[in-house]
């Protein structure tokens, strides 16, 4: 009883605190919030003008680039629609008629292609575009067309699954929009709008403090692809990501199997295993910097000297420096993975395992045939979060440990050994004389890579996924 009263009291206290804090925060920052409002209203007032500009752009556009871009989009849309349609038929889904589906795919593909084409002012389809630009432009157009089509098809084929419940809805319709409004507005202003801006920036040549800019079509992308330092950075990123993701997930699974055994003190063990996830990448990198330092006072070199008689210069060697970054990242993220694998292991039905054991499956067989497939949803989720961490979250660790170094090539002509894409993006985007267009193009590439990896992971794992429990 007393416990319940205490809980009620603490809930009241939390609610009161939340209200007081929010009111104080809004009042303290009222001028800034007002400026956001005026900025929004000004943007709204500007909308008709933007529409007019778009209309006059299309009115003066020569027909050749328009037809070419629409053709590429239509082709991509048609192919993708055909593939999706065939798979949907095989899996026995209710599908629209074949001709209708194809026409829809082509039409939407043609229209979707115009998003990328308008943003680039159809420059890749004009006669003066270089071969590389044309090729990249085709890829870009096709990707946009597909990006528009995929959600549409998911919608068409999965509609009935989405709206399941028959009852339990509130009658008011408008309120639904109002409840969503803060989320939508925030996403629109602080995610979608900057994303579009970033794409526009990537088509411009501009140096950091200077305001003037020049339209260079896909020139920034082409020169990035030809840049040795960028290629090395790409390679480094994949190398470190693979080691971080594989290392942390396999280790976490092993530890989770141990930690989910029902032994005395299991809770204490778990706490000791997962606490590093509450630390920041900066702090964990600081600890590893201290551990791996040279001069005989670092822990690792002291132990290595005692046992093997070697004292490697961890942060001066390219491979070793990458290894230290990988270690720091794994130590930081391991706890998070363990949490989810422990939760997942507890959901594996025990009777299934016992049945398999009666059938003569040994421990290893049971693990790979039963437990691992049952963990697939967790593995997928963790794969996405781990890849995201290795691509983006790792910035703090690199900045603390190596600052992108040590240099590789003669006098660092090939860049730094730990200069991952995200670190390079910030190095290139925020310094005096920074090539902003190139940095924006890097960001678009980085986004494409991570989005592509996520979609790929989703598609491959979706096929083997088991929704048990």
């Amino acid at each position, binding site marked *: 009883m007393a416990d319940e009263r205490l809980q009620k009291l603490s809930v009241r206290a939390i609610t009161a605190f939340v209200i007081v*804090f929010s009111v104080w*925060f809004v009042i303290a*920052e009222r001028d*800034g919030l007002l*400026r*956001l409002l005026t900025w929004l209203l000004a943007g709204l007032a500007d909308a008709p003008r933007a529409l007019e500009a778009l209309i006059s752009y299309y009115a003066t556009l020569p027909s050749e680039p328009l037809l070419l871009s629409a053709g590429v989009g239509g082709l991509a849309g048609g192919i993708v629609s055909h593939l999706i349609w065939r798979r949907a038929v095989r899996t026995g889904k209710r599908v629209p008629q074949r001709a209708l589906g194809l026409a829809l795919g082509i039409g939407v593909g043609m229209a979707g292609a115009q998003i990328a084409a308008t943003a680039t002012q159809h420059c890749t389809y004009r006669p003066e575009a270089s071969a590389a630009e044309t090729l990249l432009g085709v890829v870009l157009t096709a990707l946009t067309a597909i990006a528009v089509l995929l*959600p549409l098809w998911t919608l068409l084929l999965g509609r009935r699954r*989405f*709206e399941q419940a028959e*009852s*339990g*809805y*509130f009658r008011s319709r408008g*309120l*639904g929009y109002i*409840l969503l409004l*803060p*989320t939508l507005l925030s996403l629109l202003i602080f*995610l979608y709008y900057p*994303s579009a*801006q*970033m794409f526009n920036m990537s088509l411009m040549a501009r140096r950091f403090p200077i305001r003037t800019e020049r339209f260079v079509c896909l020139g920034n992308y082409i020169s990035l692809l030809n840049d040795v330092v960028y290629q090395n950075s790409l390679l480094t990123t994949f190398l470190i990501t693979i080691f971080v993701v594989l290392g942390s997930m396999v280790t976490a699974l092993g530890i989770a199997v*141990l930690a989910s*055994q029902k032994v005395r003190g299991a809770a204490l*063990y778990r*706490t000791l*295993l997962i606490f590093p996830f*509450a*630390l*920041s*990448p*900066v*702090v964990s990198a*600081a600890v590893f910097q*201290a*551990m791996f*330092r040279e*001069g*005989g*006072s670092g*822990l690792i070199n*002291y132990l290595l000297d005692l046992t093997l008689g070697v004292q490697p210069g961890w942060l001066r060697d390219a491979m070793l420096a990458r290894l230290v970054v990988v270690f720091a990242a794994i130590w930081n993220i391991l706890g998070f993975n363990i949490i*989810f694998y*422990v*939760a997942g292991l*507890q959901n594996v039905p025990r009777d299934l*395992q016992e049945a398999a054991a009666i059938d003569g499956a040994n421990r290893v067989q049971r693990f790979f045939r039963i437990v691992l497939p049952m963990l697939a*949803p967790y593995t997928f989720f963790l794969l996405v979060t781990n890849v995201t961490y290795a691509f983006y979250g790792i910035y703090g660790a690199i*900045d603390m440990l190596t600052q992108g170094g040590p240099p590789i090539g003669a006098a660092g002509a090939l860049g730094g050994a730990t200069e991952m894409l*995200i670190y390079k993006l*910030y190095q290139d*985007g925020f310094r005096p004389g920074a090539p902003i267009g190139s*940095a*924006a193009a890097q*960001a678009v590439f980085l*986004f494409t890579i*991570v*989005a592509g990896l996520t979609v790929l992971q989703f598609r491959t794992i979706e096929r083997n996924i088991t929704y*048990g*429990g």
Partner: protein
Amino acid sequence: MNALRKRPRFGVHLALSIVCFIMCLPALYALQVATLDIVAAFQAPPQLFPPGNALGANVATLFERLRFDRLILNTTVVSLAIVIGKTVLALLAGLAFVYFRFRGKVVLFFFVLLTLLMPTEIIILPLFNLVAELGWTQTNPNLALTFPFLATATGAFLFRQHFSNIPRELADAAQIDGASPLRFLFAVLIPMSWNVIAAHALIQFIASWNQYIWARLVLPPDRFEVQLIQIGVRNAGSGPQTDFGLLMAAGIVASLPPLILFLLLQKQFMSGFAITHDK
């Protein structure tokens, strides 16, 4: 009878102890180094035992020279604002997605879903321009550090998923009783969601407490007192000769709030995720 042979407990304990020791080793080492002054920290071979006597001096330096008191206060305000804002927005979005029927719901759902692929780290370049245009970098650093991150797809999904598992009859009953949707949210949904709210809040708190990259760009580097705590840790390690005692002390002080919160909410945290990821 018992098809799953029981492994000897001793082996499990031994294995767990070894793994725990390895996981804790970096932290233990950091604790030891934090007690050393700059001379002792550079001794070779390293002083692994006993602890030195400079912990108090190191911590005092943090608070006096690097203004960790202000940094902790700043980071607390920013993290609380982010956690509260995210929780409120995610709760409202979950309510709208699960308990309302309106035109374009599926499209709006995709609109939110798509943002899972757009992490803020990538768009920082234009986001920085936007925030500068609004004048927030100069006059409202607290807005610049919180407002762009209030809406996330993760939170909206978490609560949508959780609400979908709650019996629909409750909403019908609430309507018959004449309760408004917001009253339903506060009287029925939130009391049934404390574990999920706690899990979500804990993850978001840790993420915003540990944020580094954005703060480094937005905040003026020459003004110590407006920074966030992770920048403070970075500053504790800068200089011609890294003072590892000071740096480790900084790391430990900076990590205490999220660690304490994690220990307090650990139970809710584990069960909050066990529910939501149970397909």
